């Protein structure tokens, strides 16, 4: 009896990877796992991954990775069906987690946008806002980044397969710069860097390349007060304005970027939008 047990292959957890409105960069990060990709294919049953495989099997899925934001009427229905079929739903990337760069439309007149791009805008079905997955369905875990970090993804999947509750750090990029011994670009070069309010995950790539962080991992949490506490965007914004002489619209643009529609960044950008109007 014991023997037989050993030879039966264990049922592998079923993985589905779904795309909504996005650039595919986060899915490419999965393909960029390279050496680990084939192992992943052995450990998990990749049942649905149209970007990489024409073998597309129906749910239920143990894990659903969702890339992209919700921008069309159809998306709003499809995400419900993904949720129904998934035990654990994880959003991957700024698009799925925060609405992504396409959420820049949220401050604009989408009908006018359509006219800029398309001669016949009436054919184009598109919602006026780009929203994160969590505004539509319950999300079990959010993986930040534009794109996500491969290491973080791997850790998350490993934790999940081991039944461990995953916890990824959420401190600011700033801390990584100090750890890596990177000279502060704001102090040394006077460039407005979002590192102090941006979530860790990338390993401080931008300051390491001699430039400012532009917030692609979204708002950091905690700092002194602990997780869940928004970062001090107000203080950083004031420094941009008074210290680095940025005019309000420039401060606004800093916060209204890849993750511009996440609450702390959104609200900060709106403060400076008002200030710009009053000036």
């Amino acid at each position, binding site marked *: 009896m014991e023997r037989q047990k050993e030879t039966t292959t264990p049922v592998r957890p079923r993985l589905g990877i*779904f*795309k*909504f*409105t*996005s*650039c*595919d*960069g*986060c899915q*490419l*990060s999965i*393909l*960029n796992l*390279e*050496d680990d*990709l*084939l192992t992943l294919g052995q450990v998990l049953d*990749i049942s649905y991954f*149209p*970007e*990489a*495989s*024409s*073998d*597309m099997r129906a749910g239920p899925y143990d894990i659903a990775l969702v890339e992209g934001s919700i*921008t*069309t009427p*159809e*998306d709003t229905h*499809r995400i419900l069906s993904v949720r129904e079929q998934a035990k654990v739903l994880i959003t991957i990337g700024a698009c799925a987690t925060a609405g*992504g*760069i*396409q959420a*820049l*439309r949220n401050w*604009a007149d*989408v009908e006018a*946008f*359509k006219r*800029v*791009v*398309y001669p*016949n805008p009436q*054919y*184009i*079905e*598109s919602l006026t806002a780009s929203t994160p997955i969590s505004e539509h369905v319950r999300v079990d875990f959010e993986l930040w980044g*534009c*794109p996500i970090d491969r290491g973080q993804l791997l850790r998350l999947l490993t934790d999940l397969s081991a039944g461990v509750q995953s916890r990824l750090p959420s401190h600011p990029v700033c801390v990584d710069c100090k750890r890596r011994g990177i000279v502060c670009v704001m102090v040394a070069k006077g460039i407005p860097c979002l590192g102090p309010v941006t979530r860790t995950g*990338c390993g401080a*790539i*931008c300051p*390491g*390349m*001699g*430039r400012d962080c532009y917030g692609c991992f979204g708002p950091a949490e905690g700092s002194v007060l602990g997780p869940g506490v928004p970062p001090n965007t107000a203080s950083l914004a004031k420094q941009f304005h008074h210290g680095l002489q940025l005019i309000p619209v*420039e401060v606004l*643009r800093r916060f209204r*970027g*890849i993750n511009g529609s996440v609450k702390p960044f959104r609200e900060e950008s709106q403060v400076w939008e008002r200030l710009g109007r009053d000036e």
Partner: protein
Amino acid sequence: MAEEKHKARTIAINTIARVEGEGALRVTVTDGLVQDVELRIFEPPRFFEAFLQGRHYDEVTDIVARICGICPVAYQMSAVHALEQIFGVEVTGSLRDLRRLIYCGEWIESHALHVYMLQAPDFLGYDSGIAMAKDHADMVTRGLRLKKAGNAIMTLLGGRSVHPVSVKVGGFSRVPRRRELEGLKDELLWARDAAVATVRWVAGFEYPDFLPDSLFVALRASGEYPFNEGQIVSSNGLQISATEFERHFAEQQVSYSNALHCTLHGSPYLVGPLARLNFNHDHLSPLARQILAGTGLTLPLRNPFHGIIARSVEILYALEESLRLIELYDPPPSPSVAVVVRPGSGTACTEAPRGILYHRYRVDADGIIREAKIVPPTSQNQGRIEQDLRLFMPRLLNLPDKEAALACERVIRCYDPCISCATHFLRLEIERE
């Protein structure tokens, strides 16, 4: 598939295709004759051109990178060249070489992904590269390692391979030290051998006998295989600069697709590795030329299925070019040249892995973008794909739907249309009357 196809027939196609978020194909057949071929790209519009308006020019590289995770460097390169034209900035010497080098990285990465993980499974009868690994582990591992070599170049120069962060108007935010570049060499030498083996491997595949008449368009530069610069040339004699692009090429919207169709004087045309190779094979490295000759193929290549061979030859070339540039590298005195903002309009065309990518910007005196226009390769190839399908369809009409669909998908994959559009999943609907 059968079940899904059934769904496609009973539910309005518009809804269902967007449900899948990918592409769909609709073919109408009457009395055994192909009437309509509609390639539908349902990638929802993301309005980049619209929200570039009002942004500062130095934000453009971070924004346009997000148009495509597979070829962000191409978007960054077309953008910086167009903006530099406005400001009268010239990037030369080793900074120019580094731009070629990071572009090589992207070609290697993107082409290796397509050759090994996306297209080869079609020729060997698998659903994916991952599935193919069960029987062809060595091949798949080789492909992934090749791809990784491309990523390594991008990561060294750009900080990361998806959405690199260092490219900017005037150059880079940081340039590598000689020693860092030399650290890539061993792996690139391995990759060069792997690329030679790749060309030989794919040249041995079985190709359908299919020679549509194609209008080819690519860049052509003097003395080098084109990445960032060159004249736009076509197989019917066009030879223009990027500035004249919109006088000859026009985008039309079709009701069934979110991607605009671009035509040259009203005709569909082909961009990408096949076109590039046909115009520029004389600028390949000696080794790449020799290996290409060894396949026994005669140029120009006209069979779209040979795209995978052209792509493999370009991987080899890009590796040779990378090694040459690394050998030559002399770190520039500064990572970027100074930029003085002035208002104006600028255009540029560069060679993305999938073909020419055109950008035009208008900037005001404060360096704020007032207008942006972007024509990606996939919108240019779309009409050509439809035309190929129209020509290829008659030989599929007697096949069961499922097999016909698969064959059509293969035709489409030859073009490596940008993944977020219509690459891997295609719902074929044949209407027989």
